[in-house]
C-alpha cells in the first residue's frame, strides 16, 4: 500500500499522486511482483478513472465454481481455488513427474479500491485464464466538480 505524507495508508489520495505513480511506472520503476507472486495472494492490476475501476488477475486453471467475489464499500474480496488437474494422463501404468512447477492452491485476497463501488453493478469475466472485474462508483458517490465564483 502507498503511504502518503500524513503517514496514513491510502491506495490513492489525489490525482497528483496518481500522476506521480504513472511517472514512476514510465521511468521503469519495478512493481513488487515477487512479493505478491505467492500462491495465497495472486497478483492484481487495477485500472481506474473517475467513475469506474477494472481489476485484472491472471488465474489460469481457475475452478470457476469455487470463485467468490464480494464487494463491501471500497473493498473487493476474491476467493477461489486453482486446480492443476492432470488431464490426458492414463490411469494405468506408473506415473512419474519430471517437472512440477505449477501449484494447486486456494487463495483469498482483499484489495482496497480508490473509492467505494456499487456491488449491484459489478461485472466479472473469466476468459483465457484472466479474471477481469469491472466496478462502478455509485451515482451518489461520484466526484463533483465545484465551480468557483469570483467575488
Amino acid at each position, binding site marked *: 500500500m502507498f503511504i502518503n505524507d500524513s503517514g496514513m495508508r491510502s491506495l490513492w489520495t489525489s490525482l497528483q499522486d496518481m500522476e506521480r505513480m504513472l511517472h514512476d*511506472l514510465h521511468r521503469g520503476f519495478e512493481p513488487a511482483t515477487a512479493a505478491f507472486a505467492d500462491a495465497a495472494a495472486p497478483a492484481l492490476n487495477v485500472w481506474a478513472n473517475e467513475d469506474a475501476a477494472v481489476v485484472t488477475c491472471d488465474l489460469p*486453471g481457475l475452478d470457476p465454481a469455487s470463485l467468490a467475489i464480494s464487494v463491501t464499500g471500497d473493498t473487493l474480496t476474491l476467493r477461489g481455488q486453482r486446480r492443476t488437474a492432470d488431464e490426458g494422463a492414463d490411469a494405468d501404468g506408473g506415473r512419474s*513427474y519430471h517437472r512440477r512447477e505449477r501449484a494447486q492452491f486456494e487463495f483469498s485476497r482483499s484489495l482496497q479500491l480508490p473509492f467505494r463501488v456499487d456491488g449491484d453493478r459489478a461485472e466479472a469475466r473469466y476468459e*483465457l*485464464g484472466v479474471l477481469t472485474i469491472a466496478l462502478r462508483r455509485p451515482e451518489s458517490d461520484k466526484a463533483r466538480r465545484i465551480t468557483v465564483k469570483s467575488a
Partner: protein
Amino acid sequence: MLRNLLKRDDERTAATATATAARPSTRTRTIAPPVDIVEDDRALVLTADLPGVSQDGIDVTLDQGVLTLRGTRARQAHDGFQAVWREYEPADYERSFTLAEGIDRDAVSAVIRNGVLTLTLPKSKAAQPRRIAVTSA
C-alpha cells in the same frame, strides 16, 4: 526406460530472455511459463500456464527433437483508464524442451483451456513397456 525423455534446454530460453530485456521497454517481454511434466506408460503430458493466450496465439512446433511452445498474449485494452496499481506485467511466453527418442510425433495433440495448455505426447509403440507372458515349461 525413458528416464531421460526430456532434457532441460533452458539455455536457449535464457538467451532469448536476455536479448528481450536489452531491447527498449516498449516491446513486451517474454518469459518462460511454468510447466508440469508427467510421464506414464502411454504418454508424456506437458501442462503449461499461459494466461491471456488464445488458441490463435499459441504456436507449438516439434523440430528435430526440439519442442518449442510460444504464446502471444492477447492485449487487454484499457482505454479511458489509468493504471493505479500494478503487481504484474503481462508478458508473452516461450519455452523449449529437447525430447529423446520414443515419441510418436504424428500423434501429438494440444488443447488450451482457460489459459492452460495441455500437450499430450504419446509414446511410440516400441517405447511402451510390454508385458511379457511367462509360460511354464
